[in-house]
């Protein structure tokens, strides 16, 4: 029973590393990294200029005109998912705990096949720009769009804060720039990409970054393996000599089965409820390309996790105990073998060990590019919820024209960017490790249940979706606040009121039960019509008939 939930803790580690909290030391200016980063920024701004000329309608802006291929979209989805923090965080977990790191990454991967089998094609067949299009397909627009937009914007802002703070710290560490400058730089570049280049620029920034990250990680993994004649046994044997045999098996982090399952629920359903991920399915032309996207994305993400596992072990043999990367001041106080900048820097140090200053600069620049790409995708999803769901559907009741909607979206992007910069600076020294976990919990508890049931359950009504979805959202938020991550770690109380770190099991159940109960007891006339409309929706979700027309603007 003991080892049950290092899974839970694993994700605690990942969510925490996703946030990259804690004080970091500013490093000396790293010129090769800065030059490579400037090249990347120059190239992406060039793409933005190219994309801007091709972004004329709302459809272009939200979905890149629906002309992205399955392969490109799969790469972009993988780019959205392989954040800088998951690259540095997972390799740091492998570096620190060995096998446990592999288990964490598996938890993040297994949601993808389920998204393919259950959601991807139907989403493409039913939706236009945002997942709220699907959720509100046969329900009353105003309340459902409002709730879905609220869920999207909350998820996006929480995620953005975590990324911004992570970006600031990482850049301090890698480039030696000031925290505020780093955050403002990320915010300004992201606003430029999204307002001028829309989804087309965002997608290509994502694809380029995914390619660079995979190429860099592949090089590191091969360099490590070449040292051991591509023999895993000798790599592992050296690593075990450096540390001990425990790194080859599940670790000793203890938790309970409920937390394990709850975390699994959050990862699986949360991924299927993240607005910036769902939005990617509308950039392809049809259900066939949507399913190919997930196939490629699963391949890239799985491959990436295998690479991070090798990189983590590579760091054990080449960075751990290597005097070049030791934090001597810290070692004098605490003993052991602390590395400069903390465990999250394991992959970065390894890049230096295998490729010298030049490759260190490359990997640092890729890590920064990764953050830029992820925040751009997030901001575009948030801005779309504001312009397409709130402005066009709720305020103008669907009577606005596309150009005006696009204008609102661009204004929303600028405002979101400024909010992100402001909150990023505000939260510099706050403990924000809970924010990514909370974003996943809300996505799993509010966005996902409504979306899923709207596609699968004929008896869903507006009242059920509205009350159940709100209950899920509230439960998730309240339980996170009363749980260990906020109640104890942030508010400094001794004991949490709610014992589990991940509330998803409870809040998702709450949402499903709430939606079910308030739907079946809804005998209103509009509820009757909503149930009758399911048949048409179901046929469209299965065959795509009607979808082509809806996508054309």
């Amino acid at each position, binding site marked *: *029973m*003991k*080892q*049950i*939930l*290092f*899974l839970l803790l694993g994700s605690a580690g990942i969510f925490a590393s996703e946030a990259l909290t804690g004080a970091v030391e500013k490093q000396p200016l790293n010129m090769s990294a800065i030059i490579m980063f400037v090249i990347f920024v120059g190239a992406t701004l060039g793409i933005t200029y190219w994309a801007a000329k091709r972004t004329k309608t709302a459809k272009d802006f939200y979905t890149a005109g629906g002309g992205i291929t399955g392969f490109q979209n799969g790469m972009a989805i993988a780019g959205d998912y392989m954040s800088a923090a998951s690259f540095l965080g997972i390799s740091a977990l492998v570096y620190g705990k060995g*096998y446990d790191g*592999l*288990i964490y*990454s*598996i*938890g993040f*991967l*297994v949601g*993808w*096949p*389920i998204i*393919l*089998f*259950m959601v991807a*094609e139907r989403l493409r067949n039913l939706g236009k720009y945002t997942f709220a299009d699907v959720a509100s397909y046969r329900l009353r627009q105003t309340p459902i769009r409002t709730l879905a937009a609220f869920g999207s914007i909350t998820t996006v802002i929480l995620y953005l804060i975590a990324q911004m703070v992570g970006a600031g710290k990482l850049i301090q560490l890698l480039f030696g720039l000031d925290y505020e400058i780093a955050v403002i730089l990320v915010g300004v570049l992201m606003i430029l990409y999204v307002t001028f280049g829309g989804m087309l620029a965002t997608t290509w920034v994502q694809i380029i970054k995914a390619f660079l990250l995979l190429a860099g990680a592949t090089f590191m993994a091969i360099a490590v393996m070449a040292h051991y004649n591509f023999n*895993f*046994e000798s790599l*592992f*044997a050296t690593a*075990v000599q450096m540390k001990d*045999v425990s790194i*080859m*098996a*599940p670790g000793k982090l203890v938790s309970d*089965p409920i937390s*394990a399952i709850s975390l*699994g629920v959050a990862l699986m359903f949360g991924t299927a409820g993240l607005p910036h991920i769902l939005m990617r399915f509308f950039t392809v032309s049809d259900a*066939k390309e949507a*399913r*190919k996207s*997930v*196939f490629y994305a*699963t*391949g890239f993400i*799985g491959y990436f*996790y*295998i690479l991070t596992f090798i990189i983590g072990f590579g760091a054990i043999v080449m960075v751990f105990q290597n005097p070049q990367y030791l934090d001597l001041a810290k070692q004098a106080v605490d003993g052991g073998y602390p590395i400069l900048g903390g465990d999250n820097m394991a992959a970065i140090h390894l890049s230096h060990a295998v490729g010298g200053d030049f490759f260190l600069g490359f990997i640092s620049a890729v890590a920064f590019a990764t953050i830029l790409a992820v925040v751009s995708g997030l901001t575009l999803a948030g801005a779309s919820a504001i312009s397409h769901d709130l402005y066009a559907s709720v305020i103008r009741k669907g009577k606005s024209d596309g150009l005006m909607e696009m204008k609102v979206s661009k204004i929303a992007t600028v405002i979101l960017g400024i909010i992100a910069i402001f909150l990023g600076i505000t939260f510099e020294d706050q403990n924000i490790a809970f924010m990514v976990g909370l974003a996943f919990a809300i996505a799993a508890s509010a966005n996902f249940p409504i979306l899923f049931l709207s596609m699968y359950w004929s008896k869903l009504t507006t009242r059920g979706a509205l009350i159940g979805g709100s209950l899920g959202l509230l439960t998730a938020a309240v339980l996170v606040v009363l749980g260990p991550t906020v109640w104890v770690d942030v508010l400094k109380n001794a004991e949490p009121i709610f014992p589990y770190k991940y509330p998803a099991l409870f809040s998702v159940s709450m949402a499903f039960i709430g939606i079910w109960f308030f739907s079946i007891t809804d005998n209103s006339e509009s509820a009757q019509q909503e149930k009758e409309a399911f*048949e*048409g929706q179901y*046929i*469209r979700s*299965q*065959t*795509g*008939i*009607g979808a082509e027309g809806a996508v054309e603007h």
Partner: protein
Amino acid sequence: MKQEMVDRIKNDPDYIHLVRVRSRFAWTLTLIMLVIYFGFVLVIAFDPPYLGTPLSPGSVTTIGIPIGVGVILSAFILTGIYVRRANGEFDELTKRIKNKAKGE
């Protein structure tokens, strides 16, 4: 979609066949993925030393390594199996249904 078209497609034997076969296929694959993943999690929970068993006597590599990598590969293979069948058989059926719906 007009009610008349809904009724026609609903009674199309190709449509009925597509929905039944694809739903069963998708749920089966989902179930396989869940069994693999939660099976892995349960081994970790209840018998972690098992994953620490050496692959062969005297080796450092443990059985947990190929099993973990196997779970990652299984996710990729399952998506591949689905996409392969959907690109062929299911798309073919969908095309027939669409043509019939448009044609008459």
